[in-house]
Structures are given as structure tokens and as C-alpha cells.
């Protein structure tokens, strides 16, 4: 009975099957667990993670909502903030964590680290650390799909900041002219490192949504609540359908909030590093903004909704959560046990 009513008042949500909702929640929890574990590693195992790590906590609904529309051979091409995506693709967390720890059993044998995960066998060919550049790479993957007529589409994820980089504009124009099968997901987590997006984006400064940029390419542009995986799924599904139909690219802005700081503190070795407070607090002294968005935590929010809608029981939710927790713990153990690569290996893989 209540089911029927819900169906009428919000028909879209109910198009998602129960098992799919559970799958989505599972993936979101796995991402969150992974990211929290990476963050804890800086305290629990100082020095084990080097360089700069960027977490996806807060982005779970955007990532999972989008990828819930994916077909098995579609390409996924995010930025250096890349942990969340392969988790959804089924990449083993232990190899991911080992890569973040720079170990031999890492996805990339310790050559890439947190910013450069790659699992091409799962259609995740790698990332770039240079802002915006991977948007062009993703567009190139869409060219491959089109030339080979493979039926694949590309999910291209990038940040609000990246949408100010020439590569973004040039790529979207070419994708539109060539009608490439690609969905551009502008993950507006409201910050480009320490800079609030209002300070650097002309659309935002004028109070407009960022997806208005799609007009510059006469391409569909939409903005969606990026804390709601079902809403994201709905909008992305439309864009994906369009791409699959050979009608070309779309731009979707998923608006949410990065819940951790941009990355761990930048320090000169051997000074230790860990995650500082979020920029809203640390830079702008705006704890209120941070708390408001924390209250909209997509993982907690989705859990509450699933429970409320009866799509998931408390017990099932707990099972998902403890399985994810155990999986990540195991990944950490695996990664810590994995050896560091031997120095001389550094000369491998330079040329194909």
C-alpha cells in the first residue's frame, strides 16, 4: 500500500529496482569505507602514503548514481580524485590500497599511487594529475568507441575547477561536432583545492548553474542534486541513452560537497602529512557551511531513505556496512604486507 502511494508521488525513484538500490548503497558504503581508511592511514601508519591523495567522500552518490547506468564495457575516465570509480567497477580493493601504499601488488605496481590508479581490463584506462587534461583523454576513448562502432560509451568525470581549463571547452566542442558517445559529469564539489567555486567561475559568480556551459556547445546541460544517487541516476541515464543512440554528448553537473579537505597537507619530506580540516573551516572560517553540508551526507541520507522507503532493512544495511568495513580492513592488511618494489624496477615500463 504505502509502496503504491510512493510510486505515484515520485515515480522516477521507483523505477530503480530494489536490488539495484541495495547495490548502489553497497557501492557507496564501500567507497566511503575505503576513503576513510585511506585518511586514517596517515595517522595509523604515517609515511606509508606519500605524495598527494584526494578522497571521494561526499561524491558517492554522484559516482554510484552515474555508474549505475553503465553497461559492462563502457569506459570510465575520472580525474586524479579516482578511488571511487574502480571500486564500483569491481577492482579488488586490496590492489587499489596496495597502489595507494606504493606496493608491488598495487594495481600499477607502485608506479602510479593514489592519483593514477588504472585498471584497463575493467575499462578504466587511467587518469591524469594535470587538471582537465583527462577530459580530452576520455573524449578520445569515445572516439575509439565510435570508430570501432563498439557500442561503448564513456563516462567522463571531472571537477568544477577543471571546467575552467581550456581542455574542457575544446573537448566538449569536438565531442559535439563529432557526436561522440560520451557523458560529461562535472562533479561540482564546490571547491577547487582551497578556492570556492564562486570565486573562479563566471556562471557561479552570476548565480547560474555550471551546466549552462553546455550552451557553448549547443549540447544538453543539466544540474542535479549530487547527494541523491537516484536523482543522479535518472539524469545520467538520459544522457547515457542519448550517447548510446549516437546523438552525441551531454553535460551533467552533479552538485554535492567534498567532505574532506582537498588532499593531505603538502609537506616537504620527511615532515609528516595528514588530512587537515576542510577548507570551509581552515581557510574561510565557515564552519556553518561545512556542518550544513555534512548534514546532507549522501551515504547517510541514502541509508535513511532506503530504510524509510522499506527498500532496505536495518539488518541488511548493517550487513552491507560490516562487509565493506571488513573488505577494506583486509585491503589494508594486504597492502601493508605487500613488499615495496625493488629499486631497479624503476626502469621498467618506460617504453612499450
Amino acid at each position, binding site marked *: 500500500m504505502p509502496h503504491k502511494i510512493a510510486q505515484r508521488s515520485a515515480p522516477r525513484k521507483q523505477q530503480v529496482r530494489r536490488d539495484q538500490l541495495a547495490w548502489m548503497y553497497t557501492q557507496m558504503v564501500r567507497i566511503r569505507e575505503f576513503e576513510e581508511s585511506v585518511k586514517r592511514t596517515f595517522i595509523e601508519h604515517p609515511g606509508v602514503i606519500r605524495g598527494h591523495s584526494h578522497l571521494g567522500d561526499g561524491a558517492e552518490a554522484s559516482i554510484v548514481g552515474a555508474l549505475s547506468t553503465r553497461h559492462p564495457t563502457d569506459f570510465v575516465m575520472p580525474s586524479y580524485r579516482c578511488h571511487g570509480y574502480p571500486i564500483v567497477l569491481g577492482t579488488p580493493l586490496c590492489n587499489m590500497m596496495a597502489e595507494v601504499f606504493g606496493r608491488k601488488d598495487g594495481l600499477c605496481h607502485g*608506479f602510479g599511487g593514489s592519483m593514477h590508479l588504472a585498471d584497463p581490463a575493467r575499462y578504466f584506462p587511467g587518469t591524469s594529475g594535470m587538471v582537465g587534461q583527462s577530459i580530452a583523454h576520455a573524449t578520445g576513448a569515445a572516439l575509439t568507441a565510435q570508430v570501432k562502432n563498439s557500442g561503448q560509451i564513456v563516462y567522463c568525470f571531472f571537477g568544477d575547477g577543471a571546467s575552467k581549463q581550456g581542455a574542457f571547452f575544446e573537448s566538449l566542442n569536438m565531442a559535439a561536432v563529432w557526436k561522440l558517445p560520451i557523458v560529461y559529469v562535472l562533479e561540482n564539489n564546490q571547491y577547487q583545492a582551497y578556492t570556492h567555486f564562486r570565486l573562479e567561475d563566471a556562471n557561479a559568480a552570476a548565480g547560474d548553474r555550471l551546466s549552462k556551459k553546455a550552451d557553448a556547445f549547443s549540447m544538453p546541460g543539466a544540474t542535479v542534486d549530487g547527494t541523491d544517487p537516484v536523482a543522479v541516476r535518472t539524469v545520467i541515464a538520459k544522457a547515457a541513452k542519448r550517447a548510446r543512440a549516437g546523438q552525441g554528448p551531454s553535460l551533467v553537473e552533479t552538485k554535492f560537497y567534498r567532505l574532506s579537505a582537498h588532499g593531505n597537507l603538502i609537506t616537504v619530506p620527511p615532515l609528516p602529512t595528514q588530512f587537515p580540516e576542510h577548507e570551509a573551516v581552515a581557510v574561510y572560517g565557515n564552519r556553518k557551511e561545512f556542518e550544513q553540508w555534512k548534514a546532507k551526507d549522501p551515504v547517510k541520507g541514502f541509508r535513511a531513505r532506503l530504510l524509510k522507503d522499506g527498500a532496505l532493512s536495518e539488518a541488511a544495511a548493517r550487513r552491507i556496512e560490516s562487509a565493506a568495513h571488513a573488505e577494506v580492513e583486509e585491503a589494508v592488511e594486504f597492502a601493508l604486507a605487500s613488499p615495496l618494489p625493488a629499486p631497479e624496477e624503476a626502469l621498467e615500463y618506460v617504453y612499450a
Partner: protein
Amino acid sequence: MAKEMIYADAIAAAIVEEMQRDPNVVFYGQNMALTERDPMLQKFGKERVRVAPISETAEIGIGVGAALTGLRPIVELWMSEFMLVAFDQVINEAPRLRYMSGGQVSVPMVLKAGYGFCAGWAGQHSNCIYHTMMGIPGLKVVVPSTPADAKGLMTAAIRDDNPVVYLHPYMLTLDKGEVPDGEYVVPIGLADIKRTGSDVTIVAIGWMVKKALAAAERLAAQNISAEVIDPRALAPLDVATIVNSVKKTGKVVLVDQAPRQSSAAAVIAGEIAEHAVGSVSALRMVTALDAPIPYSEPLENYVVPNEDKIVEAVRSVMAQEAVAA
């Protein structure tokens, strides 16, 4: 068997043959394949041959992404300076992605561009920027100086599983030369001794090879026997062939169209210094003077190296005493 071909046609022939051979090769760039009458378009269809907007970052970046996922793109960039607006893609994306992935992916791609067009194009269109792409691990750079090398190196570049920057000297575009019939591959990383000699080693690049050979001819008349080496690839650089010659002659002249400290000549001189310092009694670089390329003809001629300057440099190294054996 061989037939005479124009340099530009030799490049085109290699591209056509490789596109026939491998359906994964695609070819695009600005201002090409504009109408249905375009011969490449007719041969290979509009999926594989395309016109691109003036968007080098996207053009090259799309090439990188396409290469990552199974195509072998050739990107026509026209003038090498146009790569500069997209230079991250050239030296910080294409050659790094394989390594960062721990060998999981590769980026088989050719970036084709002309360079060094000394024809009154002034400060921004006439440069030699190859030094910026040398010594970048993962990236190959070739500079063919003859129609045969143009064909053989293009074939090799397309077949290579790494990103290859293919730079052709615009000044040689219409030069003619013998090109072997049929499939012809010049391995990337092998220098070519374009003329053997015993008194002095001249290492020259691209258009300068032609000038060095002409200078060698003049020097022969003066009883100076010059060996002329064309590295053909600037990355990887065939140091061994150069060093062997230098050890034989003891005298070195390096000819490069770029300004001195942004030349490949300087890097080659550095290698000679490390590997053969004891065998060399004199070394001279003949490079562009330290100025951007000016528009007006007398100015441009003054800045760019020429045959006279090469002859003069050779005579000056010959005048220096030999190293005691």
C-alpha cells in the same frame, strides 16, 4: 628497387600504406579532409579521416585517449609550434601514462608536424622546438632528412607502440630522393652516416643535413674529408654511432637550426664530452644565433645557419691541433 619521390609524397605514401594495413590507424587534423572529394576520405571513410577544429589540446588529448583504448591515431599538427598550446599532452601525458599505470596501457600515437619554415613567417612560426621533447622518457622524436627516411620513419612511427613526434623540416617539403619500393621501415633510434669521411665528423639534423652535405662537398674540394651523420631520431638518440665517428676523426662540427642552448646539438655535444672527451681536439656548434626568427630576409638569413658557416666551422676545427694519440 626504388623510385624517385618528393619528400611530402613519401610521408603521405607511408600513411596510406599503414592505414591500409591496420584499420586501427586514424588520421585527423585541422583543415584536412574537408570535402567528400578528399582522396584520403574516399579511401578510408569519414570515421578514420577527419577535420578537427583549432583545438590542439583536445586534438592531441583525444589522440592520447584513443591510443589508450585501442586506436593508433596520427594527428596532423602542421607547424610544430602549434603543439605548444597543448604541450602538457605532448610531454606530460602521452609519455607518462604507460609508466604510471605500471605498464598496463600504451599510447601508440604519431604527432606529425613540420618545423623550421625559414620563409618569412617571423618569430612564432619558424622555430625548432625539438629540444623541448628530447630526453623525455617514454617519448620518441624523429626528424627525417630525406624522402626515404621520411617514408621509413613514418612507417616505423605508426607501428611504434609509443608516442612518436614526427617532425619534418618544411624546407625539405619538395625535395626529391630515391625511396625503396614497397614496405620500408627505418628503425627509430638508428643514426645514418649520410657520407663517410675521415677528417671531421659533422652531425646535422633535418634541413641542416642537406646543408652539411653540400658543405662536405665543398670541403672535399679542399681536401678535407668530412663524415656527415644524421641522427634521424633525437629520442632515443644514437649516441654510439656519433661517438664512434668522433673517436675516429677527433674533430666535431654540430649543425642545428635551433639557437645554441635550445639545440639538439648542445645535447649531442654533451654526450660527446662525456663519452669521448679524450679523443676530441676541437668541437664547434653551428646553430641559429640567439634571436627569435625575424621577418625580413636579410635578418632571417643572418640568424639561421648556412653552408658557409658550416665550411668555416670545419676549417676552424681542422686548424686546431690533434689530440696526442
